[in-house]
């Protein structure tokens, strides 16, 4: 064939994980195919087998160093589900504080370090400029507020989890470490500064969204299904039922995590080591869903905290519900950050957070099958383990956050590529002046 061309982008940069893009162009510059090639896998599902099942929460976090806390917690919840363990209420609060702190730091690293360089320098800037190191030089005040929010989240994780990266304190039956009163007071003192930085971040995000509204509303507007955790309809990242929304905005499923096999389909593509998860009743590719911030904001009726709920309403006025706007993921990330900060404040103000009654003393390993689900920053995360009567892990199935998004990423990339390459889309959108020009 003539005019046929393959473009490789290797590696895809400023993302967590390892991937390349393969774009196949046909006659007349038509976009024929886009592949998101996730180019490694490490076989956790295999080598978790044979371990004492209580060790899984100390091994599984290594799946992701940006979201080790969701893995730690999904893993321990799976073990507890398999062994019929109900942990003390104060331990639930401590775990929730841990995951909300992670949500804060992860969302801030994503917004400021991964995404912001595009908005600060514009999408066509030179790579030597378009990165967070340059933001630090050009906009030191913004960078400092970003670093302080990341620091708050990561260091609070460290106090609860012993390590911010690859935490160790959640154990079947509760938590091995309670939060000392001194630590709690230290964090409460920093809440006013956190709220101040949060407000500045929300304002910056709104400015960016409005400046780039053409991009948000015209590039990669991609209808898909959405999946996310909701607790009685409220967006929740630690506990709840799993909701699925169809592309028209109808909730088509709302189920307990243990019933996931009826709803989760897994497609094994030939061009990616990360598999594609989809809504099984609709089949593949029709049932491709997306997870992550916008998906959670789509499936939830409302946010769980007041300021976040007001922010969600404001977002919906701009992009609707469901929003299929891939670039609105950034906006939803900020809405969720507001909720994380409100949760952190509420939990730190709750006296139960320093309770030492955070661990059962009797835990009996047994044969069982358990599912643990939480929301990782980049989407819903599911661990399913089976154990034998000695409590040794005999089977693992892990449906990690990003796999829920890969097929959706390809779909949105296809929409973006067609718009840019076939329809000369760049001439149809207004790009604002970069915030910083060199």
């Amino acid at each position: 064939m003539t005019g046929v061309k393959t473009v490789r982008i290797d590696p895809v940069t400023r993302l967590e994980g390892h991937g390349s893009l393969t774009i196949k162009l046909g006659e007349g510059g038509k976009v024929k195919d886009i592949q998101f090639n996730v180019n490694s896998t490490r076989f956790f599902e295999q080598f978790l087998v044979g371990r004492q099942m209580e060790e899984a929460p100390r091994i599984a976090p290594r799946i992701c160093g940006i979201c080790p806390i969701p893995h730690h917690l999904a893993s321990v919840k799976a073990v507890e589900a398999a062994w019929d363990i109900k942990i003390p209420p104060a331990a639930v609060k401590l775990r929730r504080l841990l995951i909300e702190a992670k949500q804060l730091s992860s969302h801030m690293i994503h917004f400021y370090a991964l995404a912001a360089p595009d908005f600060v320098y514009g999408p066509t800037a030179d790579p030597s400029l378009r990165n967070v190191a340059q933001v630090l030089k050009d906009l030191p005040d913004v960078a400092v507020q970003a670093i302080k929010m990341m620091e708050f989240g990561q260091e609070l994780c460290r106090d609860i989890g012993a390590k911010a990266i690859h935490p160790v304190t959640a154990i079947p039956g509760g938590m091995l470490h309670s939060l000392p009163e001194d630590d709690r007071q230290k964090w409460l003192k920093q809440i006013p500064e956190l709220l101040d930085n949060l407000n500045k971040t929300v304002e910056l995000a709104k400015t960016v969204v409005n400046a780039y509204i053409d991009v948000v509303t015209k590039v990669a507007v991609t209808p898909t299904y959405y999946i996310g955790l909701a607790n009685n309809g409220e967006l929740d990242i630690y506990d709840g039922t799993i909701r699925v929304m169809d592309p028209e905005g109808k909730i088509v499923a709302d189920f307990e995590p243990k019933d996931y096999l009826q709803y989760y389909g897994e497609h094994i593509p030939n061009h990616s080591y990360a598999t594609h998860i989809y809504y099984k009743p609709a089949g593949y590719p029709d049932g491709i869903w997306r997870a992550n911030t916008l998906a959670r904001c789509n499936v939830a009726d409302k946010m769980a905290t007041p300021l976040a709920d007001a922010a969600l309403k404001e977002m919906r006025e701009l992009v609707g519900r469901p929003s299929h706007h891939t670039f609105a993921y950034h906006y939803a990330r900020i809405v969720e950050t507001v909720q994380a900060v409100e949760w952190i404040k509420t939990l730190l103000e709750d006296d139960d957070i320093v309770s030492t009654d955070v661990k059962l003393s009797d835990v009996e390993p047994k044969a069982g099958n358990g599912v643990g689900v939480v929301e990782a920053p980049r989407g819903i995360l599911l661990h399913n383990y089976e154990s034998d009567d000695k409590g040794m892990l005999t089977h693992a199935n892990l449906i990690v956050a990003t796999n829920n998004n890969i097929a959706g990423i390809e779909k949105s990339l296809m929409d973006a590529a067609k718009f840019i390459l076939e329809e000369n889309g760049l001439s149809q959108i207004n790009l604002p002046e970069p915030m910083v020009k060199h």
Partner: protein
Amino acid sequence: MVADPVPVAMGQGSSCWGCFQSLVDIHLNLATVLPLLDIKYWQAVVDYKLSDLEGYPDKSIVVGFFEGMARTAEDIHLLKVMREKCQILIAFGSCSCFGGIPGLANFYDIEECLTTKFRENKTFSGGKVPSENLPAIEPVVRPNTDFVDFDIFLPGCPPTSKLILTAVTALLEGKELELPTHTVCHYCDREKKETPIPEILRPFSGHADPDRCLLEQGYICLGSSTWGLCEGQCVSHGTTCRGCFGPPPPIMSDHGAASMSMLGTYAPNDPEALRIQVPDPLSMFYRFDYATSHLGRMRIKREEAKQH
């Protein structure tokens, strides 16, 4: 201080990103450190492509950090390119130093791994191993040190932010990196009474005495055989050590063998009882360094023999 920013490159093999997150977690020190670096390659942060890295003159990058292990042909390629381009190459984190937790895949045959991941699991059946536009998966995890020589090893899962800052500062100032060689126990405030362990407990059992050595209470803790660059962060939060920094210098000694020998000293118990109470010694004692251990090396040789 340094006049011109120092050319650096950050490479990632198969990894979790956690070592680089730990680098980011030096927090406000980033404001001092980042402007001193001329980042030539760092896929997580800067948009340079692999072809850019391949195109730089050999040894034109002063310092390279390599995170992760060699699971694919592409990982091995990147590792070799990093070695060619960098004057000083750092094995960054325990995956890079020892194979890390992903090295546990060597407990299984690669075909078993591929089946569980791609052919048959609860959510799919009849799948095929992906092969289009993807690098080949290595049949066995060989440690990075089989492919390149490193100048510096910074273990840890991840290395602490403090350790990273210490290392980066020394490198920028052109000074020798000197690290304390204590084990984790040195940093642990718990009291040791030198009493034998009556019985090995699983980590969820009972409530541990917060002031007593966890190992002496019966909880397996690798603190006494593990390099203490962590400064005891787990043991100070009620949790046992699983050895994520590997053995103390000389760091390529056999961590698992030393740990088992340590347990033998503390628990002079009936071997059959020990066998039942420690049902999975391989991942308990070799969790982060199976690929570089003597036992792990035998496993690698067996796999290599199969390939020929």
